[in-house]
């Protein structure tokens, strides 16, 4: 399973990579913002995207909306400090499949990935 990590913090991407490796995912691509993520998705569609909200150039919400214009099924999980109910609703309306609030523990992230992939009927 190819997973795209979209976050402007390399520290967070490294933490996420370590969690993903612990649960058996080695095929990981990284993007620093929404613009880079769109290029990566265009080059090769991943099986799952973890996306931050606040990023330079193109934020996570804009990325999700842009992706959903052409791809309704790509599993996307928002991983962000934006944890208010209104923000969660906004992200879900835009088309994310799941939501993880930072700070997260490895178990929560792993569980949300499994939950998301189970819902879309793909192996986690």
């Amino acid at each position, binding site marked *: 399973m190819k997973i795209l990590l979209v976050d402007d913090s390399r*520290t967070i991407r490294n933490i996420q990579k370590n969690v993903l490796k612990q649960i058996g995912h080695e095929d990981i691509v990284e993007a620093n913002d929404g613009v880079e993520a769109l290029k990566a998705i265009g080059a090769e569609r991943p099986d799952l995207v973890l996306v931050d909200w606040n990023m330079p150039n193109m934020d996570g919400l804009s990325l999700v909306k842009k992706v959903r214009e052409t791809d309704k099924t790509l599993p996307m999980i928002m991983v962000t400090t934006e944890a208010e109910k209104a923000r969660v609703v906004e992200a879900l309306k835009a088309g994310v499949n799941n939501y993880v609030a930072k700070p997260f523990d490895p178990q929560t992230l792993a569980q949300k990935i499994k939950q998301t992939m189970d819902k879309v009927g793909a192996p986690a």
Partner: protein
Amino acid sequence: MVHVKVEVGKPFLKRGLAAVADVSGVIGFSGDAAGCVVLSFPSEVACKVASSFAGIEIDQNHPDFADAIGELANMVAGNAKKEFEGMQISISLPSVIIGKQHIVLQSKHSPRIVIPCETSLGPIYIEVGMSVDKATCPTPAATSGATA
């Protein structure tokens, strides 16, 4: 994600230009509330906290040092924002300031509250300066349990 217990001390109003630390992560707020949150550390504590957060040894010269401090400030500010449900508040991308005993000033003259915290890695200071648009500020449902 830093794996340390934080003991929150008694908040106090910051007066004058007293510096509290050597490394600061700064997040600005705008919208119905405007201001900033500053997460400050003595140098050695900042390195320990960044290392614990990233899971690798990080000193001030490491390319990910500022990134880790900035992301921590982002998490503190983002979680604080959650308590202002019903208000439209945007947070900025983080900035990190490094300099022995520096001072972080704001252009707006809102009061600054310092929340001193003790951890097993050393002291951390959270500074909050905020002015709220009273026209959009919802009435708080309850104030019990507030620490400030």
